[in-house]
């Protein structure tokens, strides 16, 4: 999955009407491909709940072994991964949490691939309930063992910094900067900054208490590092999503691009803080880690919208808009075709901008009927697109649905049954570029087809979707 915030929440609100929760998936590069991943996203489990021979532990051991065996020229090599931390990790400022979230996410993907275990999810070490380093990290010959540690298997972390009371108090602040560390002008060496409670208390002390590799910036050499940071990520989820505390809405925080990570194939990635705030909704989930094991906050749709608006990335300047359709109704089995006649230079700009200019389809005021047994696929320059056209077709641009399956997003409850108006955005840029590169673009005109696709084993015949306005937009991405 590619994390790409090429369109943003303000654009949804400005250009596409009310926000639908599913629209967020569009940030991630196409709803449909993500739906399955979201619904079945892996669960990061408490390592205390895993037996020593659990497949997750075995996969972690195998992944570490494989990474250590990679040549030092491979960026997935164990030491090279630690070097990323040494060279780039922000500490004592507000990028501490999102940077480590992204770091862990890509590490997890590397582990998954190298271990050959697709269900792998990085387990976490909950030092509040298990204050000793877990048994799976000990034993000579065990790839999860690090012989530089300054503590032993029976030593326990001090409740003053990992105990239930102090963690509960840390989770009880509503102030992002106190929880997650303070604003700084740069990830390293900037002005400002300051340790928040989560970083200063359990994070720093666990590192220093374990010592050895863990006590320095090459700490990822110790496999326990990843599970230590994983519970910090879990506590951020607990604070932010389960307890409903908003992250900062400062654009300087969201805009940070992190280009130091590599994916499971060793390819460099460019991920923003804006993308990291959504990772727990789309890429993974946690077994509960909060000290009170509290039930997650139940979100109403309106609440979720307001909450995400308060902390959403917002940097998209629409430079051109073209209305394609107004007050149009389409039906299952009857694709809706439209055409955007672009100035020749507009398309050229999009295709040559290297991601700095995007071509977007905005669907404004989609009147969602109470019964929606379908979702919508979007194709470009595919006049004969139908529900049978696969998403592997090069003309496929994305899709959107209406997200009324609460199981797909635990903690979010869709309330009310009256018809709602939603807005969606589909980024057409990658598809246009792909078609252009393959010589498949017919000219400056772009044909767009919306296809209502019934969900498997659902009766959707006759169901309709009414759209207030369909627009094609060119936007500068910042």
């Amino acid at each position, binding site marked *: 999955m590619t994390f790409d915030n090429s369109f943003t929440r303000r654009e949804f609100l400005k250009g596409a009407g009310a926000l639908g929760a599913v629209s967020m998936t569009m940030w991630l590069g196409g709803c449909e491909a993500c739906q399955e991943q979201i619904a079945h996203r892996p669960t990061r489990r408490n390592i205390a709940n895993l037996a020593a021979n659990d497949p997750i532990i075995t996969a972690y051991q195998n992944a570490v072994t494989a990474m250590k065996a990679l040549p030092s020229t491979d960026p997935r090599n164990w030491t090279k991964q630690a070097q990323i931390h040494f060279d780039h990790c922000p500490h004592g400022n507000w990028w501490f949490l999102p940077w480590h979230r992204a770091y862990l996410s890509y590490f997890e993907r590397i582990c998954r691939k190298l271990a050959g275990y697709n269900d792998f999810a990085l387990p976490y070490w909950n030092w509040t309930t298990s204050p000793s380093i877990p048994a799976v990290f000990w034993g000579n010959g065990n790839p999860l063992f690090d012989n530089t540690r*300054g503590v032993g298997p029976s030593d326990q972390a001090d409740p003053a910094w990992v*105990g239930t009371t102090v963690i509960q108090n840390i989770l009880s602040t509503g102030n992002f900067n106190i929880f997650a560390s303070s604003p700084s002008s740069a990830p390293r060496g900037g002005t400002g900054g300051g340790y928040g409670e989560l*970083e200063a208390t359990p*994070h720093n002390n666990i590192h*220093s208490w374990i010592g050895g590799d863990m006590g320095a910036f090459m700490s990822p050499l110790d496999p326990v590092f990843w599970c230590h940071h994983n519970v910090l990520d879990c506590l951020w989820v607990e604070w932010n999503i389960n307890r409903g505390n908003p992250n900062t809405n400062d654009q300087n925080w969201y805009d940070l691009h992190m280009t130091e990570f590599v994916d499971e194939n060793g390819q460099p990635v460019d991920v923003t803080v804006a993308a990291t705030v959504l990772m727990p909704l789309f890429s993974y989930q946690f077994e509960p880690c909060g000290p009170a094991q509290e039930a997650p906050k139940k979100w109403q749709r309106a609440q979720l919208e307001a909450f995400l608006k308060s902390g959403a990335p917002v940097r998209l300047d629409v430079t051109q808009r073209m209305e394609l359709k107004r007050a149009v109704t389409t039906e299952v089995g009857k694709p809706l075709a439209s055409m955007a006649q672009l100035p020749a230079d507009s398309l050229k700009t999009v295709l040559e901008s290297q991601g700095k200019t995007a071509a977007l389809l905005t669907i404004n005021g989609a009147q969602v009927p109470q019964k929606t047994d379908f979702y919508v696929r979007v194709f470009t320059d595919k006049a004969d697109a139908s529900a049978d056209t696969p998403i592997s077709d090069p003309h496929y641009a994305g899709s959107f649905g209406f997200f009324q399956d609460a199981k797909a997003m635990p903690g979010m409850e869709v309330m009310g049954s009256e018809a709602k108006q939603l807005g969606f955005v589909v980024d057409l840029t990658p598809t246009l570029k792909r078609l252009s590169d393959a010589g498949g673009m017919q000219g400056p005109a772009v044909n767009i087809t919306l296809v209502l696709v019934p969900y498997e084993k659902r009766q959707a015949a006759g169901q309709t979707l009414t759209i207030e306005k369909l627009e094609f937009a060119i936007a500068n991405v910042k």
Partner: protein
Amino acid sequence: MTRCSVQLVAPLIFVVVFVCGSPSASPLKPRVQSETPSQTTLTQQSPEAVFPLDYARIKRGDVLLLQLVAVDNPQHATFTVNVMLVPSATVIDSSQRVPVGSMGVYPDQENHGLYTFDLAPAIRQLKGQARDACLVIQLKPLHPSSGWNRLRVTVTNPQWKQ
């Protein structure tokens, strides 16, 4: 309830001998200090300091700032500075201390830094005793068996930010 009190014993540093409420008090007696934005040095011999708190500032949600300004650590001891509340200056029972957080140091034990704390969650746990609450900062080695008798950690006295 005894409010934290102060006494001038040196220029710019307000210190009184802590009046322990129990004859079985720890020999490591904490000191009571004012909110004057000066500094306090914690050592093995003097590992704790107690500060009065402005309850009105806590109530209005002000943020507590503490800064680690100097570390003299020739033995390279690993340490932290725990931050806690006590219901009053006379309470020495450690079970009545409410942990707020700590000033952990990573990766370098000579690291300096600014630390922010929200006292409100801990204050709520003191319930009716909150008005007389005092702040305790406590130097603590992470590995007590290692030498730390030459460790000197200097922290600014509590400051507030709205």
